[in-house]
């Protein structure tokens, strides 16, 4: 790993100021960034640790009943919360216990790994990503593999989740890395169903709109029977072909609907 200057501000304002420097990079829990830096795929000159920003940690509910999770909140804290059961269940299966004690929701979303779990929960829930400057709707936030609406130096301070009537996340794990080969988050709201798929597409997380329409009319795995997903544009690698991933999308969506509670 190349060396860098380490700074640990105590407020969002100080973190934003520190990120204005040349080649400055925010550090969440470091569970992806540090391995990336070890491989010299990233070499910031200044690393701005967000772990000292207490105002970005914690979980609460706002007046609209949304679950508001600070950007610096760990996966372990979300797993333990339980007020949005499907979200907590999803968080409880990210990485392993030690990774969950460090990794943060803000870090995961800023990175937008195409096989990460969190993007599917945020997109399926229609959550709002709050930064130091603005609020970004989930539908506008994810812009392809490792790409987001975040500007240079913008920090995710909070994520606000509307809590669905029913929801479930199903992950088909890639057996070596335990990342999602395909992950499906299904969320049923009073006004319709949202289905978000991670792990599968070359474009990163996406909504499976045909399934959303079918499930909004009839929230049952049988509603998916007549649908099929094309393997085109799906990730093909030694773990599975695009066609295989496309097949898994339908299977895992069905399982998520069956398990949704």
């Amino acid at each position, binding site marked *: 790993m190349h060396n860098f200057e*380490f700074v640990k501000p105590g407020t969002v304002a100080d973190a934003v100021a520190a990120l204005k420097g040349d080649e400055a990079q925010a550090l969440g829990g470091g569970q992806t960034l540090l391995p990336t830096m070890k491989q010299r795929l990233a070499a910031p000159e200044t690393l701005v640790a967000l772990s000292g920003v207490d105002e970005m940690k914690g979980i609460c509910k706002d007046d609209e009943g949304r679950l508001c999770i600070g950007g610096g909140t760990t996966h372990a804290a979300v797993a333990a919360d339980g007020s949005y059961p499907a979200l907590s269940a999803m968080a409880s299966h990210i990485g392993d216990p030690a990774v969950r*004690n460090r990794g943060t929701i803000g870090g995961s979303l800023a990175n937008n790994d195409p096989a990460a779990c969190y993007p599917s929960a945020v997109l399926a829930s229609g959550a709002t990503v709050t930064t130091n400057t603005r609020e970004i709707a989930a539908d506008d936030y994810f812009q392809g593999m490792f790409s987001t609406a975040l500007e240079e130096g913008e920090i995710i301070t909070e994520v606000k989740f509307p809590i669905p009537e029913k929801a479930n996340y199903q992950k088909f794990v890639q057996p070596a890395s335990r990342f999602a080969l395909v992950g499906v988050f299904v969320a049923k709201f009073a006004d319709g169903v949202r289905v978000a798929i991670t792990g599968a597409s070359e474009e990163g997380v996406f909504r499976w709109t045909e399934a959303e329409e079918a499930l909004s009319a009839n929230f049952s795995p049988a509603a998916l029977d007549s649908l099929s997903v094309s393997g085109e544009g799906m990730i093909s690698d030694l773990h599975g072909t695009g066609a295989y991933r496309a097949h898994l999308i339908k299977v895992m969506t069905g399982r998520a609907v069956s398990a949704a509670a």
Partner: protein
Amino acid sequence: MTNVTMTVNGKSVSGNVEGRTLLSSFLRDDLRLTGTHVGCDTSQCGACVVHVDGLSVKACTMLAAEADGAEVKTIEGMANADGSLSVIQQAFQDHHGLQCGFCTPGMVMTAAALLKENPKPSETEVRDYLEGNICRCTGYHNIVKAIMAASGQDVSAIAAE
């Protein structure tokens, strides 16, 4: 260089570290606490698991500077005050929960974190919790058995396979 001060196994320590110094390097190279092993250095294997402020973390994937002011516990801090093995360590010995021993420090630290969270875990819960700790010798069976025994549960029904 940054000066860091932390409590390691009950003792206050400090040192000058580079930004990039990993907690695992600080423990091993600066403090000479070489019980924390570095296996993969990619946060997969779990040989480097230590506790920071009571939570298990992979010391190879945390900066030493991030542990400034923290309470750190390593395998060297696990024995009882009189030097005898702790319940978990003794259970690993009694149930042959190790062969080469390389993964053992991380296994013991992860087991301690589990039993703190969940004092009477089921066998499935133990196996799930060990997801981030890799052992290439034992096939995990006796590790699981040792952790179950350390939790005070009867392991006579778990056959030695």
